[in-house]
């Protein structure tokens, strides 16, 4: 028996497609963000509040993933921006090929910000690179403050933690300081915002974070062009 070293990524086909997407996003100066959470944490609500805050002239597009139904795309389409539903038909995560397929009839020249809402799942989406600039994890206060310890992969790989439904804090036994500490014990430099999509508390902070990221990309693009 001979041992032959292989040393390749298991998901190298996905990574190859994701790298191609990342290159196309860079060419068109698109900020692509991949939103991940468990089902019902409020990704779609956060996107609703986000889209409604934008002027119609903003070049924003959304891909939203679910196992079944077009419900989320319907909810998000009413803000007037391009929205496309990806129904995976059973698959518990989005992969790079689904993104590539979904983008085939969109002209990337017309997009500055691409928001991807992943399938509700804290485990599997963390393994699949979609070519995004950053993964964002949404955790709602009706879950548990130990979620970052139970699902370290996604908290480790996400740049920003969005703690949602903070309007419910008086009614649920959720220790928000412990949640933040737990997430930083998995990912020391985690950025964190606290929001409520109902009362709109904290949304300004989230939108400012988004603005900073978009500004940084524009500055980098301008510097590269000059």
């Amino acid at each position, binding site marked *: *028996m001979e*041992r032959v070293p292989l040393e390749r990524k*298991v998901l190298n086909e996905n990574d190859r497609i994701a790298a191609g997407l990342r290159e196309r996003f860079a060419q068109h100066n698109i900020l692509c963000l991949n939103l991940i959470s468990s089902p019902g944490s409020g990704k779609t609500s956060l996107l609703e509040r986000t889209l409604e805050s934008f002027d119609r002239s903003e070049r924003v597009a959304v891909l939203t993933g679910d196992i079944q139904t077009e419900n989320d795309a319907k909810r998000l389409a009413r803000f007037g921006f391009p929205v496309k539903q990806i129904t995976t038909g059973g698959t518990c*995560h989005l992969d790079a090929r689904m993104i590539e397929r979904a983008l085939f009839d969109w002209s990337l020249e017309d997009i500055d910000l691409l928001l991807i809402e992943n399938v509700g799942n804290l485990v599997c989406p963390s*393994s699949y690179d979609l070519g995004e600039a950053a993964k964002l994890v949404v955790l709602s206060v009706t879950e548990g403050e130990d979620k970052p*310890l139970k699902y370290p992969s996604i908290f480790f790989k996400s740049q920003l933690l969005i703690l949602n439904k903070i309007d419910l804090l008086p009614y649920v036994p959720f220790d928000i300081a412990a949640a933040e500490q737990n997430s930083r014990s998995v990912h*020391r430099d985690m950025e964190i915002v606290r929001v409520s999509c109902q009362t709109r508390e904290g949304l300004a902070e989230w939108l400012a974070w988004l603005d900073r990221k978009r500004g940084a990309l524009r500055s980098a693009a301008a510097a590269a062009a000059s």
Partner: protein
Amino acid sequence: MHEMGIANSVLDAVRAEQLRFPSGHIHKVGVRIGELAGVDPDAMSFCFEALVRDTELEPLALEIEFCPRRFQCHACGHSYAASRDDFACPECAMPDVQFLGGDELEIAYLEVEDGARAAGA
């Protein structure tokens, strides 16, 4: 449960490599799974066995090397595997550490019958 897809990707790689070693049989594939990879080793083994059963790939074993989170201390240079809730260096307690690994999802090696490589080359 995406371990089925992950196991399938491993088998795709094995099939591709089998074409390079047509005269030999690949008996084992070694996979590294990091603590932060989001892949459960037991579920992965279960899916792998189910996918291999009654195919031309039999007998094909899976060996999983589980890789904990690893850090190196900037202050004293010590490398260590971190406990679940503490990054700090166990030697000097400094929190300024660099991430070394623990998010692996890699195929490390194949075990092929003797002589297969020469025959396949």
